[in-house]
């Protein structure tokens, strides 16, 4: 079974239309929780889009729905024109809790190869891909180690390598660097951009870190508070070549950052009930 699929040229790779997610009441007599009321946006092939929002805004819920791990209550969710009804074959997810997402009883290389094994790839092919992927994330000689022997940042790299080896069309990342120290986070952010450019994969990156979202993304989607709607959709018109030092001190970076920060402050008070925007506001 080949994992490589050729992208359709002009249609968006991910379509989210009127997405709604309601969690049923946990106890009889309790209240149902409307996590997401109405989310509508599209993602084009090869884009790097960041999603930010206040805590509790349903970012993880959105990601899980797109990942096919959670069934939506309403709305349309399509990946490459097909409805998402379960984890799609051409999608890979990197979770925040790297420590719990990697299997501690397998070596790093075995962890990276496991999805490929399940997909039926030959031993040689698995080995080639996993070695390549580990090299790409800078862990060329960590293959025979166990995940718990590595630092947090390195473990997250393994999780990324696992996703890369899988050769997905679209890569979802759920606040992957939230639990990692600042220095490591900077390295990992650059790693994500590097891989994105090299592999031409579409990336959906959920984060609560505004700086990170502006630094990484071509677009930043700001979510409102619960019940969530799209608060704002900001195009990041920073140059393509980004650098931790120069980009972050760029005037435009500060403007965009400021704008998004203000949006989030607004979003904290805004819910789907009070929001006056699914506005696309150019800055």
């Amino acid at each position, binding site marked *: 079974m080949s994992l490589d699929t050729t992208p359709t040229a002009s249609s968006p790779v991910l379509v989210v239309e009127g997405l709604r997610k309601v969690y049923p009441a946990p106890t009889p007599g309790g209240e149902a929780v409307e996590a997401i009321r109405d989310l509508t946006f599209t993602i084009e092939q090869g884009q790097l889009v960041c999603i930010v929002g206040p805590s509790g805004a349903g970012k993880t819920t959105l990601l899980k729905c797109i990942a096919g791990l959670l069934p939506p209550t309403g709305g349309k969710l399509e990946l490459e024109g097909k409805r998402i009804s379960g984890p799609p074959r051409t999608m890979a*997810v990197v*979770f925040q809790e790297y420590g719990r997402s990697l299997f501690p009883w397998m070596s790093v290389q075995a962890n990276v190869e496991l999805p490929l094994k399940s997909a039926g790839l030959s031993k040689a092919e698995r080995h080639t891909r996993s070695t390549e992927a580990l090299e790409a994330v800078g862990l060329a000689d960590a293959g025979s180690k166990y995940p718990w022997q590595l630092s947090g940042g390195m473990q997250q790299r393994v999780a990324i390598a696992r996703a890369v080896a899988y050769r997905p069309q679209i890569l979802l990342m759920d606040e992957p660097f939230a639990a990692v120290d600042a220095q490591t986070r900077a390295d990992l952010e650059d790693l994500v951009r590097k891989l994105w450019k090299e592999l031409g994969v579409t990336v959906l990156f959920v984060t609560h870190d505004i700086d990170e979202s502006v630094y990484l993304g071509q677009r930043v989607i700001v979510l409102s508070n619960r019940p969530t709607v799209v608060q704002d959709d900001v195009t990041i018109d920073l140059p393509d070549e980004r650098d931790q030092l120069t980009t972050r001190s760029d005037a435009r970076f500060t403007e965009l950052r400021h704008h998004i920060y203000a949006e989030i402050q607004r979003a904290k008070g805004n819910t789907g009930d009070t929001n006056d925007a699914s506005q696309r506001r150019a800055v």
Partner: protein
Amino acid sequence: MKLLKSFLYLVSLPAILVLLWWISTIVNPNFYVPTPAELVGTFVDTWFSDRFWRDVLPSIGRLFLGVIGSIVFGVVFGILIGSFRTLRRLLEPLLEFFRAIPPPVMLPLLMIVMGVNWRMQVFVIIFGSVWPVLLNTVEGVRATDEVQRETSRSYRLTRTDRLRYLILPAAAPQIMAGVRQSLSIALILMVISELWYTSSGLGFTIVQFQRNFAIPEMWSGILLLGLIGLGLAVIFRYAERYILRWYHGLREVQRES
């Protein structure tokens, strides 16, 4: 120096106890208590004879079969029951009941139903010692980490792969804890299953000694049982250390942080 210290720790208390024992048999000779020398001598005479083939080996063989059986049944059914919530809820009270029945109590029942033969004896061992393995497996399967489950779902792992690479290894620490408990139960049941209507086996032989007031022989039998128990514990410890080496490493790292 360190080696010497470990060695001393290993033998001091036992040596002191043996010394006290020996002294008490000199000071106060008792029919019921053989001297250490007597015991060792009797031990060798009694068990390293044709009794070894007639009684010891068959008993250990049945024990072995029983242990394997309880592990296999326990793990297989544990996985089944742990994986399907409805099944578990359905069976839970029944399992609680059967597990609470003192296993020796099943012996007369099984004797009637199955007759008195080695199959019945193995069955008694399995019936009594399967519970810790079964229940621990169920718990281990249920407690599979949510993030790991989502990871395997998102990468579309096949059902068999999920079982082999996620569920079983994740539950392994729990399962091993259950196996350890079941080992001691199995040994007890092996002895008990040989106390009635049998004419061979370790348990039978030891009781015969007691009935015939062959005291040193009786004690040598108790000693042998203790050694078998110890042997099982040692084998288990090595097996556990091998199977769970990832787990020990992981805990080591967690402890240091």
